[in-house]
């Protein structure tokens, strides 16, 4: 029983770490603000959810599990609200989404934003 819980915990923690890393990479690499919101949302929902689920398998049935689930529910509520508010504020400020035509132009002209490190992976 201990072994099963540990294995499930391992799998969830590693999957959560993977999604956190992918989201962080997307936050750095993606071209404009609205796509970066999407990358940040992945880490807040799937990454945090899997990491906290992995910790729950370690805790068993106790008050710690209740606290973990409280943190998880709160993170899920607030991250969605924050992303929504950020996009609304950006739209109200007049930040335009990067369209396909703009993107082609930018690729041809060398790119205004990636002047320092074009191969930062």
């Amino acid at each position, binding site marked *: 029983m201990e072994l099963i819980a540990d294995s499930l915990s391992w799998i969830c923690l590693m999957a959560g770490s993977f999604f956190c890393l992918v989201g*962080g990479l997307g*936050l750095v690499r993606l071209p404009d603000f609205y796509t970066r919101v999407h990358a940040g949302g992945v880490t*807040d929902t799937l990454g945090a959810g899997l990491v906290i689920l992995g910790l729950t398998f370690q805790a068993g049935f106790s008050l*710690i599990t209740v*606290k973990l689930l409280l943190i998880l529910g709160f*993170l899920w509520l607030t*991250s969605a609200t924050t992303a929504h508010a950020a996009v*609304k*504020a950006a739209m109200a400020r007049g*930040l335009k989404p990067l369209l396909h035509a703009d993107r082609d132009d930018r690729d041809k002209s060398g790119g205004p934003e990636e002047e320092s490190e074009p191969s930062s992976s």
Partner: protein
Amino acid sequence: MFAACMVAILMTMALALTRAIRGPDVFDVILGVNMFGTKTVLFIAVIGFLTGRPEFLDLALVYALINFIGVIAVLRFTKYGGLGSTPTEEEDAGEKGLAG
């Protein structure tokens, strides 16, 4: 197991900080800082399990609350140019879905 997870979360925090420093717009900075705060919550929770002291979860809960309030406050500030100002009519129409 917890150490590997902590390394991954730390790397994600570094990437979020990179975006917060490099961000060309103020909203990119807010996005990076918000993600940094969320990962701080996860990091504190995993530290609690690594050191065998799950009381750290209370700290994580408080961090989650502070992070949410702070980001909403900064967003209102950037949208309206002040924390106490009331939105105008045309902005108020778009404000209905945002309870903050």
